[in-house]
């Protein structure tokens, strides 16, 4: 029998439903419609069928942007996991000023990405940057951090790691604190070294956290935008042009809304596939 309380439930979920309809369902449905149209925002839409897809498969620059994004991920994700895990392990020990260190590492996460990017742009500056000033004193060289085709993307990956590592430290800390203490005690009795305990107890036990960190940082890495947009504009020679930056340019610099929507859907498909593969691999490696 339905009661009045059942109906009140719908009222409670209504704000979410409205939000979902306006900000998720409608844009998603609309961008799906856009895939088959040519539209510059102010003129009426033109039906173009699958021509946006045929343009996509011939778009060399888009595939270069995807390759750049993958290069970023290959550097950024392992670097981030290693640093975050090492620091989490360190901050999980009984050390002095633990709270202060935890807060310090988390601080860049809450600071605006634009502010951090501008700050690092100054650090990386070839002529006047602090990093190069130190390098000149130590080794007598200056590196073109943001103007070299080979160095620009790794430089961005280092900066992104610095910004995001605090969040992953917190996640790993949560994971580390769920590992039962008796396991380490048993290992101590067996005479296991610190590394053996880490390799055979900690790592397998925090595997669910690892899956989450890899997936979140992969999705975050695929959305690379602010850093190249502000620091390099996609250069030098399109070596830091990320897929998101390319899609943004197509949509909001050149008003190719239909084509940008097609690129967006295709890119979402790639992200989904990569995350699915990662999940399968990491789950399979769950060795006790």
């Amino acid at each position, binding site marked *: 029998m339905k009661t009045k309380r059942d109906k009140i439930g719908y009222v409670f979920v209504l704000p979410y439903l409205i939000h979902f309809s306006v900000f998720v369902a409608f844009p998603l449905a609309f961008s799906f419609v856009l895939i088959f149209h040519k539209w510059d925002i*102010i*003129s009426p839409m033109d039906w173009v069928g699958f021509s946006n897809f045929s343009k996509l498969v011939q778009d060399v620059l888009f595939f270069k942007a995807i390759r750049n994004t993958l290069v970023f991920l290959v550097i950024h994700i392992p670097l981030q996991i290693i640093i975050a895990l090492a620091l989490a392990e360190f901050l999980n020990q009984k050390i002095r000023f633990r709270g202060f260190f935890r807060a310090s590492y988390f601080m860049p996460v809450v600071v605006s990405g634009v502010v951090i990017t501008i700050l690092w742009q100054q650090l990386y500056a070839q*002529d006047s940057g602090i990093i190069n000033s130190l390098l000149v004193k130590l080794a007598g060289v*200056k590196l073109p951090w943001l103007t070299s085709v080979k160095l620009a993307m790794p430089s961005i990956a280092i900066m992104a790691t610095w910004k995001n590592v605090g969040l992953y430290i917190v996640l790993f800390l949560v994971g580390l604190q769920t590992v039962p203490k008796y396991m380490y005690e048993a290992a101590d009795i067996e005479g296991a070294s610190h590394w053996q305990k880490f390799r055979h107890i900690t790592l397998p036990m925090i595997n669910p956290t690892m899956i989450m960190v890899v997936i979140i940082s992969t999705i975050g890495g695929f959305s690379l935008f602010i850093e190249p947009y502000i620091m390099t504009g996609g250069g030098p020679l399109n070596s830091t042009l990320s897929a998101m930056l390319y899609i943004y340019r197509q949509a909001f610099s050149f008003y190719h809304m239909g084509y940008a929507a097609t690129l967006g859907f295709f890119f979402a498909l790639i992200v989904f596939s990569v995350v699915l593969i990662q999940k399968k691999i990491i789950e399979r490696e769950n060795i006790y």
Partner: protein
Amino acid sequence: MKNFLKQISLFIILIALSCGNQQDQNSKRITLTYWSANNQDEIDLARSLVAEWNEAHPRVQVKHQPIPEGRSSEEVVLAAVVGKTTPDVFSNMWPGDVELYVRANALTALDQFADFDSVATDRFAPEKIDEARSTDGHVYHILWKTNPIMMIYNKKMLARAGFDKPPATYDEFFELAERIKKDTDGDGYIDRWVGITQILVTWWQRFFDYYTLYIAASGGGTLLDQQGDVKFDNEASVRVFRFLQELFEQNYFPRERMDARADVFLHSVVATRFTGPWEIRHANKFKQEGFEFDFAPVPVPDSSIKPVYTYGDYKSIVLFKNSEHPRESWEFIKFLISREADLRLLKLANQLPIRKNILIDGKFRLYFQDNPKMEVFAQQAQRVRGADSSPVLREIFDALSQEFEASVIYGVKSAEQAVEDAAERARLIME
């Protein structure tokens, strides 16, 4: 008692009549919305002009708003056109975008007004009216102001390099560059350069290097011809690419961004820069004691025709089609481009109105006497070119910018190949 009643009745009738008049007046009063640029100088100018207009025109009141904040005014206008929330009049339209809005049927043709021709010929030389004409033959915007791009130079740095006047040709510029280039701190890296330009590939950055130099080298040419076909794959383009390429190759220009540090020109790190009249106020405000600067036309190839043309960085006034009062809006536009308003544009905003004979018109003489550096820009403003009218102009500039980066900054392509590739890409975009 009768008298009292009569007086009361008369009073009520008078009140009723006056209310009726008031209502009638209110119903006839109209309000126009005017958007100006949102920098403080132009806000002050707009406020002063609107206050004067409103006082003189009680029936047609103007409500001034600085253009709402956004990443760029172009994006805000686009959003307003789509949302049909445009003002009646807007005074900061980039002419390169006009054709896009014309095709979207968002602008009113100004030449439909009976007095357009007399207003236009009073203000402009015939070539300027043609420059503003759309591909359908109508005029949808009034070219209002211009910021001619010139070369600012550090007088003391040039004097120390043995130059008592600024370099006028590419050869002279290279000679100056060689004398300025220096490693002052002995770390093995150059830290003084002849000039600087933005290395970002953002399409509009090319207005301040390639496009300005191309207009100068080609004697006033632009990217497209009158039929809208690509015409920049020519000797002038190649020369400009080669010139800039050598500046980077020889380390005369730094291959890095310096916009995050203190102004490199005012701190004598670079000796020149291609810039507009806005630099005068900025330099005067932030220069150090004893710093001297002046302006000169941008350098040209040795064989180029004199006098030198440059990019004009125009801004226009437009009347949007969804205005309910186009005639009154046109009257307000005429007020905005009057001689008195132009003088105020100079005085309050330090920007040059696009007006013929401005240097010999007595109304402006005193201003230029007091502001000799602005006179240099006013002289240059007689020989400026804007951007072509094309809905795909941004993409054409993007194609040029990509080739500019490959050829000029990183030298992975010859100047000839870069120009050819940019033109080919531009033709594909136009298809």
